[in-house]
């Protein structure tokens, strides 16, 4: 573990930058070593807590207080099961998930999976821009400034930026998640109560609670994370002999994601629950609502975290999406390529950012609805990708002796079935809401 834990896309981009600066030396110390220790699972976890995630966790806390905290250990286990499979596949096959789908299912299924991925991640990218815009609107920065600046910054960072710059941006963005830990302590909840709630399941059979539960599962287990993690493990060249480490890393990533989620729920539960405030439009509402109750500092911290999380996801997502699509079709890819060399890749990468940004800038665009829409699309993608993953992870031609054990298959297929049902409920409800 002495490598920078970034996606294959990002690492390639950085490599291309170094190619242009021929004597650029990689020093395995300081920041780089620190990120290396974090591991791909941890970065996947960080990227998974994006604008939509923060919104959902805020809602969970504001509307149900601590009473639904018990769901977090369960989603953690779900995430562990899936991330472990992704890491194992990356390690054993040495290939990304998109590669394996193409290798094994042929072109029609690949086309299907990629179209779904493009739609889901495309809408995600728009949702991240929405999150970043909403976060800065709290500081009175209008979205027509935030969005173009962030979009241009992301594009330029990857295309022109130096290795060190990308590295620093990643590290500082990773730190913003600590903002939620700090805000949770600023909010000052009864920690004993938090501990009890974590292990005491209480079920409400009202539709709004049920929906919130589904949304929490959907936002925790996001397909984007598996693609990221598997490519990242494959790209690091970690082999089956290091499976123990990869498991630990995946578990750590899953736990970390949900620890942050826990703090977000605690912040909003401790401050907003019981005040009659409901969040309908986005996570920034939570930040705004915090100000009169927990002070301007808590509000600023919360908004800062939202902005950082959105930008992190918006940076990695277009890259990973473009690489996955191009590699599964065998198109030339790489940020170091010119438009004429890799037209699809560069076109797709640019288009994802530009369209994502433009959607948010449409006058009167409801940002909250955009985030919810992107979550629904991810929900549809999730079972599809899970089924692909389970078929692949149980294929001895690919996995050899590292196929799933029987009990793991029972858990994983059970999980997939559950997700299918939850997704259908969520999608049906959202559709009904939209039609009204």
């Amino acid at each position, binding site marked *: 573990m002495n490598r920078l834990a970034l996606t294959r896309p990002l690492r390639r981009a950085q490599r291309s930058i170094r190619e242009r600066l021929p004597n650029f030396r*990689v020093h395995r110390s300081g920041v780089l070593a620190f990120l290396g220790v974090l591991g791909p699972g941890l970065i996947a976890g960080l990227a998974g807590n994006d604008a939509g995630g923060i919104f959902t966790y805020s809602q969970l806390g504001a509307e149900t207080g601590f009473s639904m905290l018990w769901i977090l250990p369960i989603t953690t286990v779900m995430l562990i099961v899936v991330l472990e499979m992704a890491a194992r596949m990356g390690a054993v096959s*040495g290939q990304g998930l998109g590669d394996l789908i193409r290798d094994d299912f*042929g*072109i029609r299924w690949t086309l299907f999976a990629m179209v779904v991925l493009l739609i889901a991640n495309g809408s995600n990218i728009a949702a991240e821009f929405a999150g970043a815009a909403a976060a800065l609107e709290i500081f009175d920065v209008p979205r027509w400034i935030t969005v173009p600046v962030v979009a241009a910054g992301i594009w330029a960072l990857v295309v022109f930026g130096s290795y060190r710059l990308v590295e620093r941006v990643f590290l500082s963005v990773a730190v913003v998640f600590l903002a939620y830990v700090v805000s949770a302590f600023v909010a000052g909840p009864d920690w004993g109560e938090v501990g009890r709630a974590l292990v005491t399941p209480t079920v409400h059979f009202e539709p709004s609670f049920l929906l919130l539960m589904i949304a929490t599962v959907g936002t925790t287990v996001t397909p984007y994370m598996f693609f990221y993690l598997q490519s990242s493990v494959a*790209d690091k060249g970690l082999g089956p002999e290091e499976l123990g480490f990869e498991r630990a890393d995946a578990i750590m990533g899953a736990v970390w994601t949900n620890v942050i989620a826990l703090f977000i729920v605690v912040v909003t539960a401790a401050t907003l629950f019981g005040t009659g405030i409901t969040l309908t439009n986005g996570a920034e509402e939570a930040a705004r609502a915090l100000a009169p109750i927990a002070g301007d500092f808590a509000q600023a911290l919360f908004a800062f975290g939202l902005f950082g999380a959105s930008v992190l996801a918006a940076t990695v997502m277009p890259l990973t999406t473009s690489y996955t699509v191009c590699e599964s079709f*065998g198109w030339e890819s790489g940020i170091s390529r*010119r438009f*004429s*060399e890799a037209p699809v890749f*560069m076109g797709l990468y640019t288009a994802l950012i530009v369209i994502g940004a433009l959607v948010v800038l449409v006058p009167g665009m409801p940002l909250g609805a955009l985030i919810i829409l992107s979550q629904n699309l991810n929900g549809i993608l999730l079972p599809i990708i899970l089924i692909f993953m389970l078929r692949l992870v149980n294929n001895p031609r690919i996995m050899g002796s590292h196929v799933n054990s029987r009990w793991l298959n029972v858990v994983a297929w059970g999980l997939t079935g559950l997700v299918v049902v939850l997704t259908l409920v969520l999608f049906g409800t959202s559709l009904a809401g939209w039609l009204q």
Partner: protein
Amino acid sequence: MLFLSQIIGRPVLDRHGEPFGKVRDLIVALGERYPPVTGLVVRVASGRDIFLPWSDVESLDASGARLHTSSINIASFRQRPNEIRVWLDLQDKQIVDVEGRKIVRVNDIQLAPVRGRLRLVAVDVGLAGILRRLGLSGPGERLARALGVEVENYIEWEDVDPVESSVSSLKLRVPHQALSTLHPADVAHIVEQLAPRDRTGILASLDDERAADVMEELDAEDQVDVLEALPPERAADILEEMGPDEAADLMADLSEERQAELLSLMQPEEAEEVRGLLTYGEETAGGLMTTDFITVRPDETAQQVIDRLRQLAPPSDRTYYLYVTDADGKLEGTVTLRGLIIASPETRVADFMRPEPISVGADLDAEQVGAAIARYNLLALPVVDEDGLLLGIVTVDDAFERALGEGWRKRLPEIFEPAEDR
């Protein structure tokens, strides 16, 4: 033109025209320039796959297969060691396009009769293959043409090299023959596009000298990856073949234990040079220099030096300057290749060398080394210790690489316009 995707799933009829099954896969024998089809995998009504030898097949085209026989001896045919199943082993897999020097995906496989046999002639890596398999050939190709997109892209079978983690068939993994014909920089370009596991496979298949050449073309991070994945003995062999400065730069990125292990496995002489270079800071003359240079004695004649050069046959970048040292290794002068050639054969080196050459100390800052080379218009600059003993030389390209690394390079124009260097 016949494509694999047009055959798979088509009906197989026996000699009476009765349905027998469906085409499931084709078997080809590797080894020839265009591998011949040697058998057919047929899915019969019961859902089983059976193998048929090519001798049982009368015809095969886009409408399906027709057999000579109606009674099949199932046990008579087995897949032989040099044979692969084309659909299973090749379709949709990643391969190296040796000609285009990049990694591509097999969208379809082209078959044609060559010398009396149906053979695998090319792989289709273009949009046409994707559209054909999606059943959108007609409208898709018209649309693509209207947009000015290149639809067809075929690679001849002999210009194809397997990517190991994608092509699961063991039989395909052996060769990498096509790759060995490429320039090391092109191999490095391909290697960089591959997953780490495949990189090592390619490096391992090359001989030490070629592997070292390719290694020198890789960037630092990939060098480390590849080296770490190779068995230590093999890694040491490759390091020996690399330039000592390149080897030292690479070793500087490894852990100390790993350095010690590799150095102990290298030939003592090479290991000593690398060990010496490792002691210098990266941003100094010592860190930039190589210990690969040629020395001559002041009392040798021009003819003797030329004879020795002929014998050594050194790479071109080491012949421009020869360094004149005394018995202790103290630098006394330099001789240019031009000076050597125009001197009459019996002249002693001391008489035509350039005395009091420009030299720098090993701890001089890299930037100043570059400045010195630029100021005096040198191709290489000798590095000496306090006593004037020659330690190594910094070549102009090594110094320039360092200098360029510090400047901000404009990226934008290169994205949109072709540059000469790629």
